[in-house]
């Protein structure tokens, strides 16, 4: 069971960290000062979640692998900074480039809405640590959903340009939404073991919320409009897009250049 729990926890942590890393690229470059602050805030919340999850994963890892001779002690930082791309388990959606504001907003809306329903259920996880992290994070995620929903509405029901940009973003990002609801092996196992969330069961809730917000944004439903669109997957199992390698090269550069240092 512990290895499933470890992978499951890492997957949640990686999602949070990679999206935080992406969002933080906006810091100092946002379209409005208030929104620069808002997206940075979301980034900070996500780093906070990632840290709690990595700390827990490190604890699990040290228990699992403690017998192995010479295995280095895991910490939140070894997990974040010393795993390669093929070991990262985030879904493809969160590693997609920031693009313009519409792209960033829609990525956040799709992800946070899913994360909201997931954490809601994870609060009842048989694993009390995961349950506690979910509970603590849910307030933040509720805000992320509200903020990104408002922006989807604003852009969809704003100017012709903002509407077109949002539709372009939809084109780019939609194929990456399916993966969130297709369980990886460790997710299925986690459900069976009683501590994981059944992502398939979340899908209709997510779709309903997406439909509602799109309707308010005066846009037609992306769900009915995209039947037959192929869904990309692989991220959760470590097969990423070419984006992730560059994210990690930059993010990990200091830890890789100066191994074993305290900062």
């Amino acid at each position, binding site marked *: 069971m512990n290895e499933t729990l470890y992978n499951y926890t890492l997957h949640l942590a990686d999602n949070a960290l990679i999206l935080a890393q992406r969002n933080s690229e906006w810091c100092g*470059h946002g379209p*409005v000062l208030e929104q620069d602050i808002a997206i*940075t805030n979301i980034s900070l919340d996500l*780093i906070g979640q990632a840290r709690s999850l990595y700390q827990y994963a490190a604890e699990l890892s040290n228990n699992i692998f403690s017998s192995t001779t010479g295995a280095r002690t895991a910490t939140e930082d070894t997990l974040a*900074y010393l795993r390669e791309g093929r070991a990262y388990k985030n879904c493809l959606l969160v590693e997609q480039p920031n693009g313009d*504001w519409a792209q960033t907003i829609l990525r956040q809306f799709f992800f946070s809405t899913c994360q909201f329903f997931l954490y809601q259920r994870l609060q009842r996880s048989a694993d009390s640590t995961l349950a506690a992290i979910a509970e603590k994070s849910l307030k933040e995620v509720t805000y992320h959903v509200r903020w990104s929903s408002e922006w989807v*509405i604003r852009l969809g029901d704003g100017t012709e340009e903002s509407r077109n940009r949002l539709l372009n973003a939809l084109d780019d990002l939609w194929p990456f939404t399916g993966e969130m609801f297709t369980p990886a092996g460790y997710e299925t196992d986690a459900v069976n073991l009683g501590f994981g969330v059944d992502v398939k069961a979340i899908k209709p809730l997510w779709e309903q919320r997406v439909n509602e917000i799109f309707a308010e944004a005066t846009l037609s439903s992306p769900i009915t409009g995209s039947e037959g669109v192929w869904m990309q997957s692989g991220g959760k199992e470590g097969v990423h897009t070419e984006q992730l390698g560059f994210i990690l090269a930059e*993010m990990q550069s200091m830890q890789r250049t100066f191994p074993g240092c305290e*900062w």
Partner: protein
Amino acid sequence: MFPMSVQELEKIFLNKIEQEVKIEPKDWMPDAYRKTLIRQISQHAHSEIVGMLPEGNWISRAPSLKRKAILLAKVQDEAGHGLYLYSAAETLGTTREQTILDLHSGKAKYSSIFNYPTLTWGDIGAIGWLVDGAAILNQVMLCRTSYGPYARAMVRICKEESFHQRQGFDILMALSKGSPEQREMCQDAINRWWWPSLMMFGPHDGESTHSEQSTLWKIKRMSNDELRQKFVDMIAEQVKVLNMTLPDDKLKWNETTKHYDFGEINWTEFWNVVKGNGPCNKQRLDARRKAWDEGAWVREAASAHAAKRKMREEKKIA
């Protein structure tokens, strides 16, 4: 009531200044006082905003998750400070947009310190310790400045800044206790940021254009050289805790003055950077202009949507 003459108004104004009563937005104030404040507050606001860039440069590469979160929060605080200050400037009858456009056109200035590049992680520590340290001395003074909204903004800002300075020192502390490479990184950052930090206090008192009038109006309450000396005295002590040195062989405790003596600043470099020739002047302004221009459609969409929503609500009511 008869309208008062300018002379009478000015007397009331100077009396308030004298009595340490804050000047408030609706109070009468001399045009030059207003102009000076607009110039200074918006310059200060721009410094916060442009100041996000050199540190922002290291967010993606921060060497631990904790440091990443701290840095991100710090840069975000600077955005917040920018907001307070733009608001304070607006109480004087300018708009945020106009203020920003003045920055982009090069008409308004910002602190020259941000025209130096951040080359290593050590620079993030040095900025926190030295640059924020220098800023705080200035800002603590400004908490007692004569214009109410500015003084109150400063009180909020000061609280956060001293936090930032401690975080910067903490980064350097970790480096100073680390590997030889880390210690070298620490000393190197101090070497590069020391002199530019001293320049942050501006020209010598004799050569400072706006100082005299600002002092009379109690906008400014200490001279450039006084503040600078205070800074040197503080840092010269703190650097010992780091087991590092400051790159000035003239730096020496003076028993007579009870202050540290220090070497002469390279004023040619100072004026050169002010004139726009620093290593990053162009890069910083380009980055700000780019963010603004590329954000135009977002701002337009937001106001278009707000207008639509308002119209719909009015229709509902009618």
